């Protein structure tokens, strides 16, 4: 690789924009708020309330701040970084960041029938696997809901949530 190509690559790398932390903060806040509209089966209302995040994501840091301040009902909020598929069981919510959505179908297979709400981050993903999915509408954060996917896990959904997001399984 010549000097010019190296300089070009360096320029590209240097120009990677700073990730806007506000987005991650609001994704974490949305996640916390989702729990107010969802009711897990009684056996899952004991112990810690676990939000697993698949792979690295700045959302983990934001969720940890919330976990330090609030719980979910009477449950203590615990944030887990998931590295292996086997670690998914035991979570109440699994968040799959945009960069890892290529693993969504495998994650879904493991999570299925374990009372887990799968939250993904990318256009159209609530239609395929996720119960909740972050999307951008005109560049602004919003979310899609697939009621069927959530209720199949034995989790009840408060209908008020439908008026706040975009239901995709009607």
């Amino acid at each position, binding site marked *: 690789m010549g000097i010019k190509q190296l300089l070009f690559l360096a*320029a*590209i*790398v240097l*120009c*990677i*924009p*700073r*990730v*806007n932390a*506000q*987005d991650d903060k*609001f994704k974490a*806040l*949305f996640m*916390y*708020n989702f729990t*107010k*509209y969802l009711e897990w089966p009684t056996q899952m209302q004991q112990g810690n309330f676990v939000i697993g995040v698949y792979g690295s994501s700045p959302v983990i840091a934001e969720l940890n*701040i*919330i976990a330090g*301040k*609030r719980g979910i009902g009477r449950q203590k909020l615990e944030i887990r970084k998931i590295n292996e598929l086997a670690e998914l069981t035991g979570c109440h919510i699994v968040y799959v960041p*945009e*960069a890892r*959505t*290529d693993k*969504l*179908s495998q994650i879904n297979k493991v999570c299925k029938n374990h009372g887990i709400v799968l939250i993904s981050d990318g*256009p159209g*993903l609530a239609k*395929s696997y996720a119960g909740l999915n972050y999307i*951008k509408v*005109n*560049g*602004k*954060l*919003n979310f899609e809901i697939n009621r069927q996917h959530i209720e199949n896990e034995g989790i009840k959904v408060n209908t008020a949530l439908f008026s*706040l997001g*975009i239901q995709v399984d*009607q």
Partner: protein
Amino acid sequence: MNKLLHILLLLFIAIFLHAQDKKNIAQFTKDDVLELTYDELLEMPFEDVIELAEIVGVSLEDLIEMLLNKDVVSASKKIETNFEAPLSTSVISYDEIVSSGARSIEEALRLVPGLIVREKTNGNFDIHIRGNDNLPAHHLFVYSENSISLVMIDGRPVYNYVHGGTFWETLPIGLADIDRIEVIRGPSSALYGPNAVSGVVNIITKRQTEEKLSVTGNVQAGAQKTVISDFSVGKKINKYLSFRATSNFETLNRNTDKLYVHRFNKKEWGYLTKQQLDTLRTFSPLENEWFNVFDPHDDINAMYPSPILARQRFGANGYLVYRPKKDVCFDLKGGYQYSQVLSTTMGDNPTSYAGRVSNTQYADFVAMVKGLKVQTNILSGWQDIVRCDTGFKVDILNLNTNLEYDINYGNLNLKPGFAFQLAGYNDLPYLRRADQGFLNGEKSLWTTAISLRADYLIREKIRLIGAIRGEGYNTHNKMYLSYQSVLSYKLNNVHHFRIVASKANRSPFLLDSYADFLWNRDGRPMPGYIQYNGQKNIDLLTMRTIEIGYRIKPVKNVQADIEFFVSKTKNFGALYPDSLNLNGFSNASGRPYVSMLFGNIGLESEQSGVTYNLSWIPDKNIVLRFFGTYQQTSLQNVISFSPDSAIVYMFSAAMSGSGYSTHFPDERDQNINNVSTPEFYGGIVAEFKLFNQKLTLASNLYAYSKHELQTKYGQQQIDEKFVLNLNGSYKLLNNKAKVSLNIRNLLGKKREFAYMDEIGRLFLLGLSITL
């Protein structure tokens, strides 16, 4: 009682405070939101958090994503990102168009990869997707028109079915109407019907999203008496109903009032004034009489009322959208346009120029109810395609209806469809005598089509798409099938591959099918009469293409697209002489008579090429884009002589025989390079925002390599050209006003299209107001 009063008072205060609180959230600025602590945010109801997320708005990362990777609907008839689109697509947004200083939709297409855009006269453009220009060569200018690309406004075809192509000036909309322009390169008849052969330009109009009354006005004025303006007003009346109304007006002059006169009677006439044209007379040794280069009835003043005027148009449009539910929407549009331009002639005139006047109105209705989409539209009015030349003025009535239904089975989407089209034209009201026109009455093309598109997603990565469409025409006994099959693979968010095989065909046209025109060439050189005949059931032009495409997004702010394509086109058709009778069409006439018949000519074209596009956003205030296409087109079975030469050949044959000849010269050339499509065309777009984004400096360079236009009148080389445009704009009055300086074609005067104007520098000043 006191207790009750207290409770009521407390309730009132609580409601008041709650109302105040709500009001405060709505009034929050981005900075206010950023100052909120986690504790405050966690206390808030979810609906308020959502509202705050909206106030924080678009992150830098998203902004870059939006600039780099816009949404596109035309490739799959559903919203998807350009990165994932299964076809070769490009999108340019309204903001990009306005920043670039483009004066019109046509000029904005110079920002799109894979398009050849040449300016004929000020503001009037010749536009081709990928190429296949000027086929067959050595013929009328009408064969240099692009009849193999489909232009649509929100899915409504705006196509000229008289002889194919798009009269761009007749689009009723201006820049104020546009949300974005989507371009598909490659055959797309399976999705959009006939004529989407080399690709599709789908212009998507704006939707009113603001609840308050929004009013905008833009005007640019400057050299060559240019005035380009548009106005729009819109309001979202309630949650379900919104409206917009727009108007546009423009007038542009040429930089000369002279008209090119072809070589005639062994003399190069070149560019002449209208007065010189009118008096131009020469002597025909053959017919031993004086004649004018025009027909005796031609009135030069009516044909060229103002040769300095390049383009003048006015349009008005109304939009009404009613969306009672998320999956139910009714969309009604209507509008009117009047236009006149001076551009290349569609007839066989002594000059390369002709006027074209259009006066049309349209209505377009789209109903979407759950998975069902019904679109129906009508266009009516008149067009004088070669201004004041007998036979070219027609009344138009075009009707289109499309029905499509979305069926989803898990990851499989099926879209069956039905389409009906009527293209009706009538020249009778404008004829002095009922047999003087090309059509001599009302003639129509009826098209009915059924289609099915299947789109299957496997493991979020692999997408298989198959689309097929069968079409029947009232002029043809057999059905035409077009298809598109796609295999795309999204490895991850960085790499996307696709392979596309597709076939598309052109529709029949009115003149090809129905022409019945006897041209009495009284007062003109031989032959004395030329009869033009159309015929039905000729094989329709068909293109087959294979494309391999790859998109890469190595980092968040860089995206590169590259597409390799090979296409084969056959069944070209054209008018050529099929018989010549020295004794005339009846022996009594005594003047040579030639019959010209529209038919297939055996010409085939094979094009291969590569198109690249690299977008780089080094900073939120800088956008850079580099794009280009390299292509080669090889032609087989080429008729390398003009129809006039064929007439001369047949004349000789008739002279040496019985006075009658049907002997068309049979020489054909093989492996000829199509010199009319430049080997390279492309450009660079750069946009810089300064002073807190108040000042925008945009520059775009569009270039093509040397090529040549071969007509029946001669051939002219088009030298390579670098079209450099600069536009600077500054926002004032709290972004409610904007002033601009726009310099088009900074590098100076050069001809972009054979026998047309030398396009030079143009300075414009602009003002925009938004209320």
